[in-house]
């Protein structure tokens, strides 16, 4: 299993659009990917629950990746957060 943490910089937080993009990105991998913030966690491939975390600017998120392509997924997702959130 791999994990990384990231602090959200986007002023509106993990709102619908980046959440949608994250779901798409996560869908490119077979690994199980979860996003945890403020003691709650959601699967990165499930848009409603992901938005339901209500992640705001300044919040720390921990992204956990487990599966065959976890190495590639970690790299791609870390880049995604950096560029979009």
């Amino acid at each position, binding site marked *: 299993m791999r994990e990384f943490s990231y602090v959200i910089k986007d002023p509106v937080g993990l709102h619908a659009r980046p959440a949608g993009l994250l779901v798409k990105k996560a869908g490119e991998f077979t690994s199980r990917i979860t996003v945890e913030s403020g003691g709650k966690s959601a699967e990165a491939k499930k*848009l409603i629950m992901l938005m339901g975390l*209500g992640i705001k600017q300044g919040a720390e998120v921990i992204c956990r990746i487990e599966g065959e392509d976890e190495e590639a997924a970690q790299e791609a997702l870390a880049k995604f957060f950096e560029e979009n959130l």
Partner: protein
Amino acid sequence: MERYIGKSVMKGIAIGRIFLYKKRDYQVTDQKVSDPAAEKECLLAAVERAKEQLTRLYEDAMRNVGEDHAAIFDIHRMLLEDEDYLDAAAGEIESGFNAVYAVDRAGTQFAELFAAMDDEYMRGRAADIRDISQRVIRILLDLPEEDICSDEPVVLLAEDLTPSETVKLDKSKILGFVTVKGSANSHTAILARSMNLPALVGVDIPLADELHGKSCVVDGFEGVFLVEPEDGELSRMVVRKNQWVADLEALEKLKGQDNVTKSGKRIDIFANIGNVEDADAACAADAGGIGLFRSEFLYLGRDTFPSEEEQYESYKAVLEKMEGKKVVIRTMDIGADKKVDYFGLEPEENPALGYRAIRICLDREEIFITQLRALYRAAAHGKLAIMFPMIISVEEVERIKQIVDMVRKDLVSEGKPVGDAELGIMIETPAAAVISDKLAKEVDFFSIGTNDLTQYTLAVDRQNQKLEGICDTHHEALLRLIEMTVKNAHEAGIWVGICGELGADTALTEWFLKIGVDELSVAASAVLKVRGAVRALP
């Protein structure tokens, strides 16, 4: 000819045919089905069709209104792919229910999840979940997709419009909007302002089918909606419409110009706004800044106090939209005609003279402190000025400054980023105008609120229509108070603006410049008109 009255949310005149937009209501009933597997097939097929519709809507919207507005359909399509949502619906079917009921249940369940969140943006997402569920249900019930299409441009008449309805409108096919429900902040109103089309809300008209296709006039200046206007009325409206279009074109040419008279005297012209979206209108109108941001919108139409975080986000959003231009935010002016249940205010004999605005803030400091914390945190993101309403004494200002100091120190010690802000007061009571020499030594600026200053100076209730005749906004007493306030401000070396209706009264523009007013803050729609008046002066 039939004549209806409504609240105008965007000025202008539209003449054309009515397009009656009616939601075809359906009923959801729970029925037991014998073959859940077949029912599930129906559900999945309907979801697929809904996704196809959304893909098409996304592409249409990209062409018509651009990526910003189109993205919602892409999100809707992805919501329909959400496993949890589909599992919830499938689960209902497995327990023996019909697909329509199952989707309705799943939609309600997830909409409630968003509706319960503490973030305003996320609460708004409940409407998206309902939207996608309705789309699938319509397909299951074999109802036509809700759509507005017409070959010629039309006046859209509807009960009310939701965001996903407004966004898919083909802009070139709409002349104006008339809705039965809705408010100045409804989606219809926001869309109408962004499209610069006349719009009326709250028009009490029964939506009978035969209205569809009838000729009509929307008069966004007078708040009047005419159905099948008589010839005489129609030709008068055509004249007014042509005048309006000519005026608009003339104003458009003033964008990017300075607010300066022929002899080189200049004045700032800022905009008054009432919510975050209004800042877009202020930018579009080329306002030099925001001279009055009424913060009441954060408190109205809800059941609990707005949190510091929520306020911070709103203030910050406006400061960022204005890109370094000055933004004057007025602390909350609740009370008088703006009542909010959760404040627990008691009914008053004389609300205009009662427990309102800064009087509440200095009595219930926790409300005030929350707002000040949000303001000072937002100040780090732009050029903020804070203004306090309903001031009558130097003591009030001293107390405010003590609280402000405490709030700033607390924020700094908590390690939160804090910005600087000018501190100013509204001059809207005769008391404040009369002692403006003393008050000027305490603050960085004055803003003269002429609406209340008129009603308090003349002892005329501005909401009593019978008194309209004697409510003289050019009364000598009022003008003397204004002149005195400006003089006292300048003697103390501070700037002074006008933020009431009078600021946009072009009969007084020359006089404002003569007495040395530094800034006029007017409705976004009046910025260019006032600029034109300034530039026409010798």
